[in-house]
Structure formats: C-alpha cells, structure tokens
C-alpha cells in the first residue's frame, strides 16, 4: 500500500547531527496513530556529498533500524547535480499521495503531518497545504515565527512567503513538471508558482509546523550569500507571469527574497482622479497651501505617458458656506481641459460625494483621492493601474505617509479591530517579513488613495452613503471582497496624506455599530492577518508566548534579536 506522505529531502554536505535531527523529526511523526496507519516514507537523495562525515552518517542511517521509523530510502547520486536534480530524483522515487518538502537540516514539528492530515481530511479537494514556520537558531532555540496570511497569489509573485512547511499532492506536482532545471536556489518558489497556476487556492494551517535552521550556508541566515538564488527567483517569477499572460518586467529589490514587478499598461487608459474637496487650506512644512491644488499639481508633475488623466473635483460648498473662488480658478489653471467640476451643496456625506464624482468620470479607472495628499513617487498612478488591470483585482491601495514620514496606511487590517497596518511605523521600515516592501493582498484599502476599474466600482454599487463620514472605505472594501475580487496594496505607489489637517470628523459610535451590524462577525476576520497575532492591534504583535524571541538577547553571530 502506498504511504500517504512522501517526505523528500535533498542532501548535500549538511552537518551530520543536523541531518540526524531532521530524520528523527520525520520518524517522530509516527507517534500519531493515524499517520503511522497512513504511512510515511522518507526519500533522501545524497547529491554526492563531499564530506566524509556526511557519507559516514548516511551509511549509519541506511543501516539503522530503530523501532519506530518512517520507511526510508537513500538514493546516492554518482555526481553532484544541484538541488533541483536531487529533488527531482526524490520526487521520481516517491510513491506517496502527498509530497512533503523538507531541507536536509530543518525539523518538522512533532505534530506537523497530523495537522496537515487533518486539513486534508477536512477537504479532499485540497492540493497544497502550507503552514507557519520559525527559525531554529544556531544555539538550538527557536525564534522569529513567521505567521503567514491565507493564500495570497500576488504576494507569492513577489516573495516566496510560503517556504516551509509545504505539502503538495504528488500527482499535481508531477503534472506541473516537478522542479524546474536551472531554478536552483528558488526551486521551491518556482514550484509553488506553478502549482498556483493549476491548483485550487492553497490551504493554510496557521501553526508553526516547521523549524527552519539558521546555518552558515542556509538562506535562513542570510540569503545575500546565494546571489544565484536571486537570479533564479527573478527568472521564476518572470516565467510565471508570462504563463499567466501578464506582461511585466521583474527586478530584485534591496530586500533579499523580494522582487518587484512592473506591469505593462495596456491600451493607454484614461484615469479619472476623483477628489472631493471643500477647498480647505492648511499649513504643511511651515507653509500655507490650498490642499487640492497641491494634490492635483503633484500628480500633474509626474507626466507619465503610459496613462491619460482627468481630474473630477467635487467641490463641496456645504449647506452653509461657499467654496473660495480662488480654489476653482487655481484648479482650472493647473488642469485646464482635463478638469471637470462637480458642484456639491448637500450636507456633508463623503460617500455621496465620491459616488457623484465617479458618475461624472469618463475614465476606465477611477483614482479616489483625498484633497489633503501630495504625490511622492513618480509612476504611482501607473503602478496602481498595472495591478488593477487583472480581472480579479477590485481595488488597489497605496502607501500613505504622514507629513513626518511615518506610515499612515500600509493596507487595512481587520484583525479584531478596523485599523491600518503598521500605523505610525517609520515610513521606510520593511515591516515584519518584508510586509511593507511587497505587493500583497489585504483586507481593505483606504479611499484616501485607492484605484479601481470604473466598472467594478459600479458593479459593487459604489460607496454606501449610509456611512457619511467614516467606514465608507471599509464597507467598500468588504463589498469588493464579497463580490469575489482581491484587494491589493503596493508600496510602489506613494502619497503624503496630511490627515486630519483638512477636515476633522470624529467617529460616531452609531457608525461603528452600523458597520458591525452590516457585516457581522466576518468584519473582524482578516484572512491576511493570522490567528497567532494579538487581535485589536496593527503591529503584528504575536499572542503571548508565541514570539519565541528571548529578551534582550543577541544572536551568536552578534546581530540583535530585535526584528
């Protein structure tokens, strides 16, 4: 009878003790009766290790017959072929229903396969399961758990956030061709991308089921020492995008393991920038400004020839005051015939103003923008359009900074509360696991700067005018996701947002009650957070005692354990 799980491990010159621990961690899975009953085989492929102690250790392992162990097969390659060749040999020898990817010095949690089996039993349609992981320090202690989101294809395109533990249906892995030759160093990322193209959404088990060893030659310690891996990563992502029909260039970033994709903009679209404004003035960096003028001027200064722009300004005179005529005159001077003015003289209702602005817009895309903003990064609008081109993307949010450079918006987070990811953190901080440097899915995006295809905006019914001041973007985000679209956030589109300097609107408790009543318990379930994170926060703080990081400790190599 074929085993349920085939653990495949390519071996090349690990520390012998680390290899023994790895093997023991696989054997330990059998203490679960259902795993022992289903069967586990461990395929080890020695890729012509050069160290004598490793070869001796492998000989011992081959001869050993402990009482409870997985069915073990040792294949010895005559010549070194690289990790891809060795992994493919292991895959070819595997007979199990599911393959488990395990590096030669990593450890499985004792309950790893039991947890994976539970997930697979709950839904026979699952092809791929991945879990959270942590790092195994050189001193043997565990630290830096990576608590991952639910399956996020966009994030996977920019960063192999899945890593360990990954389990895939063997038939599906073989269907996509196994590990791709030439992708050594990023073979797992390449495989995950190929699987994502054919398999149902991956299932995520929000528990640490693998311990990724920090060894001097491990990418867990410093992927800067594997430059070939970076090139392979770029190639893997580029090939994946091409297979998906997405025209884009791929380049490395300053963060190892994270790439940037620049999408080709199709058809030179018109983007209608919808800006509700009361013509407010304020002082920023010591100087007075009319906010909407600088918002428009900063976008016009970025003359990106990939897109055309229209500015739809909803001038809110309110029921009691008129907008200063200098506001409209200045806008006409700036935007000329690209300007469209929509007069609004009703009581304040931000959602209604946005809806009226979009009604008057001609563009295939609408950029909802607050007046108290100023563009930072050139190409921001085009960056958002590039991502919004995908049929299943409903909304794209941008990185917003306060006037002091701290982060105002890194995407919405609805994990026990409604907030902005990493609010107040340094604007250039990479965030935990590079969260703030990678294009990724998120629960929602602020309407202070978000871009949608106009037809999506209309399809979801626009903004809900029941939320006159607050939570209209939360409701829009929930509606967009409920309609089956993804919401993305990109760090490559960036504005200053001088929040609360233009119009102060306190949150009415009735609005909070209304949004909670409308969406029920699902409101505070954020698929892109993680159950191991403390709810009600935005800073990725783990639940008690799950951080694994000792206090005030330095790692043996002298680096601080602070992330």
């Amino acid at each position, binding site marked *: 009878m074929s085993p349920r799980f085939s653990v495949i491990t390519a071996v090349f010159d690990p520390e012998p003790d680390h290899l023994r621990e790895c093997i023991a961690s696989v054997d330990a899975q059998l203490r679960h009766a259902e795993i022992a009953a289903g069967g586990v085989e461990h395929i080890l492929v020695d890729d012509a290790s050069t160290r004598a102690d490793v070869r001796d250790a492998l000989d011992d392992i081959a001869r050993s017959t402990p009482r409870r162990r997985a069915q073990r097969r040792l294949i010895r390659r005559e010549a070194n072929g690289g990790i891809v060749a060795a992994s493919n040999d292991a895959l070819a020898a595997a007979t199990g229903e599911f393959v488990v990817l395990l590096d030669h010095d990593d450890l499985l949690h004792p309950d790893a396969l039991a947890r994976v089996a539970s997930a697979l039993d709950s839904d026979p349609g699952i092809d791929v399961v991945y879990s959270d992981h942590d790092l195994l320090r050189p001193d043997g202690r565990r630290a830096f758990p990576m608590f991952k989101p639910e399956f996020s294809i966009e994030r996977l395109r920019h960063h192999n956030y899945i890593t360990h533990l990954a389990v895939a249906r063997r038939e599906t892995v073989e269907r996509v061709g196994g590990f791709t030759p030439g992708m050594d160093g990023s073979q797992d990322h390449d495989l995950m991308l190929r699987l994502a193209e054919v398999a149902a959404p991956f299932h995520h088990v929000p528990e640490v089921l693998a311990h990724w060893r920090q060894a001097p030659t491990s990418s867990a310690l410093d992927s800067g020492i594997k430059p070939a891996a970076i090139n392979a990563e770029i190639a893997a992502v580029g090939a994946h995008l091409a297979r998906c029909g997405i025209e884009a260039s791929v380049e490395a970033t300053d963060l190892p393991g994270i790439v940037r994709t620049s999408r080709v903009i199709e058809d030179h679209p018109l983007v209608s920038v919808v800006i509700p404004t009361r013509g407010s003035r304020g002082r920023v960096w010591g100087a007075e400004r009319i906010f909407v003028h600088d918002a428009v001027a900063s976008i016009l200064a970025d003359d990106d020839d990939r897109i055309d722009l229209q500015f739809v300004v909803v001038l809110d005179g309110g029921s009691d005051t008129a907008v200063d005529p200098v506001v409209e005159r200045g806008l006409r001077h700036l935007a000329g015939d690209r300007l469209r003015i929509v007069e609004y003289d009703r009581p304040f209702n931000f959602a209604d103003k946005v809806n009226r602005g979009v009604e008057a817009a001609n563009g295939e895309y609408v950029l909802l923008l607050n007046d108290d903003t100023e563009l930072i990064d050139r190409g921001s609008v085009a960056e958002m359009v590039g991502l919004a081109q995908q049929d299943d993307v409903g909304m794209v949010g941008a990185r917003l900074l306060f006037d002091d450079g701290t982060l105002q918006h890194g995407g919405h987070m609805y994990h026990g509360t409604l907030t902005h990811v990493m609010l107040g953190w340094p604007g250039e*901080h990479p965030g935990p696991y590079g969260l703030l440097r990678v294009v990724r899915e998120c629960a929602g995006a602020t309407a202070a700067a978000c871009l949608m295809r106009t037809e999506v905006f209309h399809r979801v019914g626009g903004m809900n005018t029941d939320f006159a001041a607050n939570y209209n973007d939360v409701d829009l985000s929930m509606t967009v996701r409920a309609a089956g679209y993804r919401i993305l956030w990109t760090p490559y589109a960036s504005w200053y947002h001088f929040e609360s300097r233009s119009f102060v609107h306190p949150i009415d408790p009735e609005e909070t009650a209304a949004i909670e009543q409308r969406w029920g318990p699902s409101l505070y379930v954020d698929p892109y957070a993680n159950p191991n994170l403390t709810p009600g926060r935005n800073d990725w703080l783990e639940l*008690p005692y799950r951080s694994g990081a000792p206090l005030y400790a330095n790692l043996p190599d002298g680096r601080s354990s602070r992330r």
Partner: protein
Amino acid sequence: MLAAVEVSDEVQRLRALVGPSEVSYEALRRDRDESMRVAREAMAEVGALRGDIIDLRVQVSRARQDQEYRDVSVAMSPADKVLYRTRRRWATSVTPRAAILVRRIKRATAR
C-alpha cells in the same frame, strides 16, 4: 513642489509685501521653498524618532505579555497545570479528531 497659482489678488497681496519687483517675489518664493525643505527634513527626523518609539513599544509589549504569561504559568498549582494541559489537548486534538470522525460517519451513512 507648489502650485503656481497666478491669481490676480494673490499677486497683488505679494506685491504689497515685497514691492513691485518680480525679482523680489522670486527670491521670496525661493526662500519659502528652502524653508519648507528644512521644515520637511526636521519633521522627517521627528517622524523617524516616533517610528522608533512605536517599534520599541511593540518590543516592550511582546516582552511584557510573555512575562505575564510566564507569571501565570508559574503561579499554577500542579493540579491546575494538569487541568490546563488536559483542556488544551481536548480543544486542540480530541475535538478536531472527533469532528473528522463524525464527518466521515455522516458521509458513509449518506452513501
């Protein structure tokens, strides 16, 4: 980057401040832009410090909640610990397996 708003009354106001000299107006604008740049950099330094404080707060929160959790664990009597571990095992292992068994039975009886 500022809006070049050529509004006649705005120009009149500036002329009243600096006199009828366009050169003076340009000099004034350069001074203002430079002042804004200095102010922006100063605010960015403040922002960097604020961001560091937020980071430190999270580290302290992490340490504090780990300590509190540890204090609670230490204060538990042996009986409390056994009860806690039993409850945890029931919730994380027994209940999910029972649920799977029930689903399997239902599927089997449905056939």
